[in-house]
């Protein structure tokens, strides 16, 4: 290194350092746009056409489930196990807007995925707020937060956790509907009752009757399934009609990304151009589920659209 020494005039080092200073500043400015933080998603809010009591029961069931979906610690995992249920949490401000509030938390969690700038060890908390807005309409709000033990920094979710939690709630609500449909169609099957009613029949006839019973059960099951599918289809058609008649919106920005899931970092399905019309299939507070003119469905930010005149 000493061998590389150059002898220079007094001005050269100043020039070099001035140039270095300019370069330093330039590089900071150049990279500044790249330093943008990951974005936190707003609360996941959705109005569901279900009675308040049913939604409360379902949400509490999910909150007690011991699993937090949409996040994980170790690569290859898909969710966090070992979560606990609680009705209060100091990690969120006290909820004062009414409704029923549940929490699910998991402590000693290592840098969980899908939380903005997640690092260190801390606690993941999911908050569910269920509010009654009508006899058959209920508002559900979900928020997820990771708070470091060391620095007490709060890291909001990027939205994926809430989406996955809602997916589970939605699934259970649908299952509940299917069970209700079955119950309403009178095709509930109770093996215990059936066997007791046939207890005194002759042994020779048992086999044949059992086969007939099996056949009847199969038919009943298929009828119930058909009824459920028909009900589901009718519901979807009704929703579709409602959407078609009520909700067309137009892309208001130069380019809008159609996402697979309602959060900013979700994969883009396609880009929609300004002026293009889309059909609204479902709405949350900040995201619309839409169908584009080419039939492609996805989520789009409400800020990217304007109402059809």
């Amino acid at each position, binding site marked *: 290194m000493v061998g590389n020494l150059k002898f220079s005039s*007094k001005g050269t080092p100043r020039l070099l350092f001035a140039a270095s200073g300019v370069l330093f500043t330039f*590089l900071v400015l150049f990279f500044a746009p*790249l330093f943008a933080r990951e974005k936190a998603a707003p609360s996941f809010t959705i109005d569901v056409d279900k009675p308040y009591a049913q939604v409360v029961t379902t949400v509490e069931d999910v909150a007690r489930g011991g699993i937090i979906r949409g996040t994980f610690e170790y690569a290859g995992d898909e969710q966090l196990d070992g979560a606990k249920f609680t009705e209060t949490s100091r990690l969120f401000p006290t909820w004062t807007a009414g409704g029923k509030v549940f929490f699910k938390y998991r402590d000693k969690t290592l840098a969980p995925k899908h939380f903005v700038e997640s690092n*260190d060890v801390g606690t993941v908390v999911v908050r569910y707020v269920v509010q009654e807005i009508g006899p058959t309409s209920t508002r559900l709000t979900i928020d997820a937060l990771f708070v470091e033990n060391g620095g*007490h920094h709060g890291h909001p979710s990027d939205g994926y956790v809430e989406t996955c939690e809602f997916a589970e709630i939605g699934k259970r609500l649908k299952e509940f509907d299917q069970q209700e449909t079955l119950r309403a169609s009178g095709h509930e099957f109770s093996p215990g009752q059936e066997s007791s009613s046939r207890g005194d029949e002759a042994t020779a006839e048992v086999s044949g009757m059992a086969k007939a019973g099996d056949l009847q059960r199969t038919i009943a099951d298929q009828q119930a399934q058909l009824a459920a599918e028909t009900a589901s289809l009718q519901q979807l058609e009704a929703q579709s009609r409602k959407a078609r008649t009520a909700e067309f919106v137009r892309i208001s920005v130069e380019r809008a990304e159609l996402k697979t899931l309602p959060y900013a970092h979700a994969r883009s399905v396609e880009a929609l151009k300004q002026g293009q019309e889309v059909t609204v299939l479902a709405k949350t507070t900040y995201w619309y589920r839409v169908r584009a003119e080419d039939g492609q469905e996805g989520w789009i930010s409400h800020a990217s659209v304007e109402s059809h005149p």
Partner: protein
Amino acid sequence: MRLCDAREVRNRTASGGLVSVRSFLVVALFLSFFVTSSSQPSQAIPAFARKYGLPCSACHIGWPILNVFGQQFRDNGYQLGNDRDSPIYQNPAYWPITFRVTPNWHVETQNKVLVDQTGAEQTVTTTGFDLSGLDIWTAGTLYKNISFSVLPSMAEGDTFHFENAWVRFDNLFKTPWMNLKFGKFELDILLSEKRFLTLSNVGGLWYNYQFLPPGDINGFGGIGDNQLGVELSGHSKNSYARYSIALLSSVDGNPGLTSGGQAGTARTYDVFANVNEGFQVKGLGVQRVGLFGYFGQSPTFFLTQTVGGVTTPLEAQGNKSFSRVGAYGWWFIKNLDIETLYMHGQDNAFLGNGIAANDPAGLPPGAAGPTWNGGFVEAHYTVNPQFILTGRYELVHMSRQANAALQATPNLGNVDSFTVGYRWYPIMFSRAGLAFHNEYAQAKTGNTSLLTGSDQTSRSVMIGFDFDY
């Protein structure tokens, strides 16, 4: 590398006076900067992230600074302490080795350098594209509660040396308060020079950790050097409370019983101790404070044997004491963390004056053990885990020079420095890490110019890519 023969130093000091002392300092500083920065050891292991399938941010505020969990993981012998430590969870492709190197461009200048061609002092400038040393680090567990680390390192043109190599028996008697480490290791001080963010020639060290007064022949390289010995340490479960005490060979980490730079001569031991405590402040998080002390001996001459005109040092003699004691704090305010350190150093009068202990008459008038005080404030602002700004102000000021002649220049040896920079991490995955590094550093050393006895200022600008995989 440092001068090891006391008589040689004494003779040079006697004949050259202050000029030789200054010359020594200039060369020592120059070389120590170069050596320190060119072989900056790695202390971040993507291999751990690969092993556990965790993101780097699980353990690092910004690579290579450890966060609360990272400290806990390290204290626990690179173990999570849960079932994920079990081999059945490990990726079969897991390869526990990390390479680190930093290609860079840098400018170095120093003013008031006496040059032969003009016989005058002038500013000397060098610049160009460069490489750091190469680190090849492997670390992990040999078995449950037996951890290890081996870090061969080399600079361009060097042969490999072991930056560290140790085995650690963790959680002895099933308590985290008992861990035994054996080998060559980093001294257990929370503010680690091995895990800081500055890399340039002038800013790539903490002067307090490396400082020696002008003309001092202490063979101790500093708190920042890894040392050879055995360490007993312990910590609370969350690693807020920690202690360590180490018995070290007086060899400054050099294998082969190399005391005072002479192989096969060591026969004394040093002691280093550290204790630190963390406490939670509402809304701010963990704050940490600590105390440390290094108490050692260094030889002032050697028993020798001359055969066929070749003199061989046989045994370090005239060992004299030195000490470094200090306190530190690490403060967290949201995304800003501030490291503060105070240190007091003291060397024996024989070490400070470069005089053999068997020749007390050689001590100059007013000889005394040199003492000094120093400290630094270093701040990191984590804009986000991929972008960190850093800045440091550091000083070391002599409180007592080694003899009456040196007292005439009370600022001799003083160091005042500052460093600013940032690191951007476009890639921070379990497979690899890449940081774009940009840094400016400046250090002024008191009264060290050879001709006029003026203060000298060294400056570094560094732009580089620091990567490991």
